[in-house]
């Protein structure tokens, strides 16, 4: 069963948000989504300086077998993207909550987010 990390919040579109209220929020996709996609070979991220809107698409994640839109779980300005994951998208499979993070946003507003417990329950993940 795919791992759901306890201290994060999740969107129903499978993005995780790491926000402690002190700085930009880190965003990635859950292990549930990464496992379902299969081996990820390409990721298209929003540009630094662009504004993303909660619930709207802001990029895409492509595996050998399928492609999936990336939805912004929060609204705000993108302040950093993970260049490592752009050059080595397999990091999303191997370490979705760590080295496979995607981008950071200076959050203005959060979209509707689930707790780790709620997300795990809804998606068959393992806390």
């Amino acid at each position: 069963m795919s791992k759901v990390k306890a201290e994060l919040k999740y969107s129903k579109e499978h993005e995780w948000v790491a926000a402690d209220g002190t700085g930009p929020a880190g965003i990635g996709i859950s292990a549930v989504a990464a496992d379902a996609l299969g081996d990820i070979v390409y990721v298209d991220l929003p540009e630094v300086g662009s504004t993303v809107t909660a619930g709207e698409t802001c990029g895409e994640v492509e595996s050998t077998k399928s492609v999936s839109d990336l939805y912004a779980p929060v609204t705000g300005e993108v302040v950093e993207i993970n260049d490592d994951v752009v050059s080595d998208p397999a990091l999303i499979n191997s370490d979705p909550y760590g080295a496979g993070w995607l981008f950071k946003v200076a959050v203005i507003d959060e979209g509707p987010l689930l707790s780790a417990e709620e997300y795990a329950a809804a998606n068959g993940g393992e806390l």
Partner: protein
Amino acid sequence: MSENYTALHEQHQKAGASFTDFGGWQMPLKYGSELAEHHAVRNAAGIFDLSHMGEVWVTGPDAAAFLDYALVGKLSAIPAGKAKYSLMCQEDGGIIDDLISYRRGEDKYLVVPNAGNTKAVLAALVQRADGYDVKVEDVSAETSLIAVQGPNAEAILLGLIPAEQHSLVTELKYYAAAAVEINSQELLLARTGYTGEDGFEIYVPNEQAPVLWEALLEAGTDQGLIPAGLAARDSLRLEAGMPLYGNELSRHGNPYSAGLGPVVALSKEGDFVGKEALSTLKSAGVGTSKGQKLVGLIGLGRRAARGHYPVLKDRSLVGEVTSGQPSPTLGYPVAMAYVDVQHAEPGTALDIDLRGKAEPFEVVTLPFYKRQK
């Protein structure tokens, strides 16, 4: 959800496979990483459960003449021990299935249709058999099919075959088959496959399949053999430029547009189902000067095309993608597509509409990947 499980289902579950419905069967999609499985087949070896494929025996004094009538190829021309890739067409030239037939004797053929088409092929064979002295017997439910594919496939098999029969395997030609003693059972071994690599397919009764599967895996441990699922099978066959029924081939298509004109033996003696329509399509130049043609496309960017995406030339629709994904071996996106013949020349620059954005692709000669011999 399909109800059909192969005789190897337990082996797949134990190996941690994730499953997918394919042609009415629950088949392993992948065991771990589909990319690792793909690379294993290109560089070492992979073992596949293909038991969803159909197996139909056609036997009797008229077997050869009957298959010449029922299929578009000249099956009577192949000697016993050889196999032939052919098509079963409708009267209008539409493709019912692409299939391999093995001649096992003067009056004996094993016909292997795709899983999802087995019922249709069987029904058509029975219907077309009227007036021929043949017996058509479906043994799909009792027969498993295990493939070992990759550069190390031969060495792995030899480990399970008595020394005095080794030459049967080492001398077995591509698209040939022989009865060989494998793991102490006499089985039909064919040098065929759907990966673009050297490899073998073994027909085995269901009850013997699990033991054979495990013996092959054990024999292949030192040779890098791992189980591979349908995800890897699909990416391997796409790189090798091989059509998949339902993607590139259908009842609405025809052999000439699909680049399978040479498979149609218009000059063979006697009538065959679809002859008139196919002859008309050929003389009209379908697939060469008229209509659409199946081509290979490579992506100049990193984003991959997928089935049903529109193919554009100067923003006008000129075709549709049938299969596409990032090529694990080559490292860039590859796709097959039907395009209008005037845009089918290798080197032609075309765009594919990737979810609203036109991305540049180029027509190339198939296959995308060819192994070094």
